[in-house]
């Protein structure tokens, strides 16, 4: 059930009706019930897994809290929780990857296990790990309510593709739930609409071009492959950022604030800045729960580079059990190291070339990220340099890329010269009319322009 489907619309109407009908003290139960129903639509069998992960998180959290004076017991509870999450993740996501690679290394035949990857597994296991570490560090108290903790893990807007929510941000909201209020609805609807436009209007359109180009890159010439790469960069941004916006919007409609996940990442002038703008909830998770525990920047200079590489390699692997993702993570890790070394020797670059270099690098790293295997990635890279074949300059793609580029230029200008935009309240009649006209224009544009089919969100597979 994706947010841009009719099924979801009906589901959401049902949820709103249920919230409206029951007393406020039962809202958490209703949300929990609907979140489990939402997950059951994907595969009802994995409700048990979701319940198990939540239960382990809850029990270990309570154990850490109870034993906060006994370091050994506290540590055991923490590691038991983390180990359980990694075991679940390792089995469902990486078992076949390890079997395949072990078979290659040992030169033996091995059969893959018949495993289905439960949707959203990487997200909700990471949420539980962050919760356990936060309780262990004493940053938050353990959640004493099973219902609330289970809802924290299963809250449906962010359940299947993030943002990865921290317990310290979510649980207090649940305890002091403001319920549905008009300010949230007004803002939530706009954020949801923004995400919907990004997904349906841009990402799904671009997918129609990117899918065939990335499926068989050697069929196309270099210009088409460059256009395909640009289109994919915009597609994955609009797809994932669109999903995040829709999730944030839906959560706001229900009275919850979820963290920001994207901040115009393609405006970054360095790879380090890119990671402060792209998939923020994951990059900050990796920073707080992997990079810093490894020693972060407070170790010997050579170890900083090692820590960066480990973090990014694991970050790459988090996206999927494939060497392509490892390569993608390695490229980013290496770039972060180079950037750090460059800064360490006092290197500096004007903003425009720095942006160009960073954008080109990020663009090229999307090749292994998108291609199905190593071979196709190599074929794509070689095609970018000297590819001969069909030239396909799809006019809709050129138009959409121009539109997205224009938005980025405006945003870059805004960041530099204007600062934040303010809406003065109360809204004047003129602004109200313009709002209505803009919404109507948008609805018409979606009706006229929406593509033939909506693809699943890219990040669902992770």
């Amino acid at each position, binding site marked *: 059930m994706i947010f841009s489907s009719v099924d979801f619309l009906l589901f959401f109407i049902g949820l709103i009706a249920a919230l409206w009908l029951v007393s406020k003290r039962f809202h958490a139960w209703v949300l929990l019930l609907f979140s489990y129903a939402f997950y059951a639509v994907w595969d009802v069998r994995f409700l048990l897994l979701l319940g198990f992960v939540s239960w382990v998180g809850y029990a270990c959290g309570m154990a850490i809290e109870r034993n906060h004076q006994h370091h050994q017991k506290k540590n055991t509870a923490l590691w038991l929780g983390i180990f359980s999450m990694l075991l679940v993740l390792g089995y469902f996501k990486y078992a076949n990857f390890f079997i395949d690679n072990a078979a290659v290394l040992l030169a033996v035949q091995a059969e893959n296990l018949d495993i289905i990857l439960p949707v959203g597994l990487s997200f909700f296991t990471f949420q539980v790990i962050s919760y356990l570490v936060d309780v262990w560090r004493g940053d938050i108290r353990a959640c004493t309510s099973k219902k609330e903790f289970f809802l924290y893990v299963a809250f449906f807007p962010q359940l299947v593709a993030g943002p990865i929510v921290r317990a310290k941000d979510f649980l207090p909201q649940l305890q002091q739930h403001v319920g549905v209020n008009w300010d949230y609805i007004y803002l939530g609807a706009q954020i949801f609409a923004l995400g919907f436009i990004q997904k349906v209007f841009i990402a799904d359109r671009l997918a129609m071009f990117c899918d065939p180009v990335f499926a068989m890159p050697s069929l196309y010439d270099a210009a088409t492959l460059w256009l395909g790469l640009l289109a994919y960069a915009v597609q994955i941004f609009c797809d994932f950022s669109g999903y995040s916006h829709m999730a944030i919007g839906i959560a706001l409609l229900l009275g919850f604030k979820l963290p920001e996940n994207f901040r115009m990442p393609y405006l970054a002038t360095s790879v380090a800045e890119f990671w402060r703008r792209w998939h923020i909830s994951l990059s900050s998770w990796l920073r707080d729960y992997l990079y810093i525990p490894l020693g972060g920047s407070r170790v010997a200079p050579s170890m900083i580079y090692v820590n960066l590489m480990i973090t990014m390699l694991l970050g790459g692997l988090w996206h999927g059990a494939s060497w392509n993702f490892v390569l993608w993570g390695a490229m980013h890790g290496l770039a972060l190291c180079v950037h750090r070394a460059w800064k360490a020797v006092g290197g500096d670059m004007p903003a425009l070339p720095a942006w160009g270099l960073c954008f080109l690098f990020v663009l090229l790293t999307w090749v292994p990220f998108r291609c199905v295997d190593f071979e196709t990635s190599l074929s794509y890279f070689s095609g970018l340099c000297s590819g001969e074949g069909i030239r396909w300059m799809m006019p809709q793609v050129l138009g959409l890329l121009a539109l997205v580029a224009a938005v980025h230029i405006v945003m870059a200008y805004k960041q530099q010269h204007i600062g934040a935009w303010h809406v003065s309240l109360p809204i004047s009649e003129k602004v109200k009319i313009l709002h209505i006209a803009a919404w109507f224009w948008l609805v*018409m544009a979606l009706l006229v322009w*929406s593509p033939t089919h909506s693809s699943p969100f890219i990040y669902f597979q992770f």
Partner: protein
Amino acid sequence: MFRWKIAGLLLFILLLWELIIRFFVLSPAQEVFEPRLGYVHAPYASILRTYEGYARFTLDQFGLNNEPLPTVLPTNRVFVVGDSFVEAYQVMRDENFVSRLGNKWQHSLLFNAGSSGAAPDKSLISYDMLAPLVKPTHVLLCVNASDLYEILSAQERRDAAGDLTALVRPVDKPSRFTPLKLWLYGHSALITHLKWKYENDIRAWLTGFNEKKVARKSHELAGKDLQKAVEHWHFVLRSLQKTGVKLSILMMPELEYLPNKQVHLRVRQGRTILASEAIKLGIPVLDSNAVFAQDFEKSGQPAIGFANTHYGKGHINAHGHQILANWLDEQRSVILR
């Protein structure tokens, strides 16, 4: 006052969308109801299509993609009939293979009777209706593999002896709202476009089911189905032969592009059977697959698909129509035998 301002603004936006679609996307669907064929294009309707390729022209007095029929007919009158590949609403008129052949063959009328979605049985109905006016001397029946599956679904009329006498397709009967709907479609590009969107996208989005895609999943025919389809095909061919015209079959290209200018020729069951059964009846069959493959291997330029859709999928583009016209020109002695 506020409400009036809103209403005015919304109306203005609707008008703006109407103009954008009318000038850049597609023309209003000017259609009329024909009892045997269903809804067909109105005579002299203006066509603008940009969903796949780009086409802008005015139809002839029959609602087909031709210049108006001349009052004095030339010696050779070739009736080219088939589905949307012949209709060619993806390229300008002078780019399609029928027009190109018409320009190449002096003293010949090349009449384009192609109609979107027309299976061979429907082509036969078109022939019956138009032959008294066009007076064909030759017929070029254009088919592809899926026509075998399509022709199977035609309804049969049999005489007392059990012999097949006609193939028909039930058409949607006009309702009391039909005149209003036709008027709306005929006057609004926006409504026409939204109807198309509904039929192709929105209904699939609402139901999570794409009927067209399911319907297009062709399967191998066997047993009674295969016998029936072959009987229908024979009926179409024999009916055309009986009229005394010189009939030829053109197998439209069906191929897939591969890297390094390679081509995979798709030879589905339907293609083989339609061709072999026609040959059994002594009808020449022109298979265009090879010439399309050779051209791609030489030029690397796709002849199927468009920049605004997907190369290798869908209809023949202008380059493809040129290949087809040049090749059919070489086959002139067969077609105009």
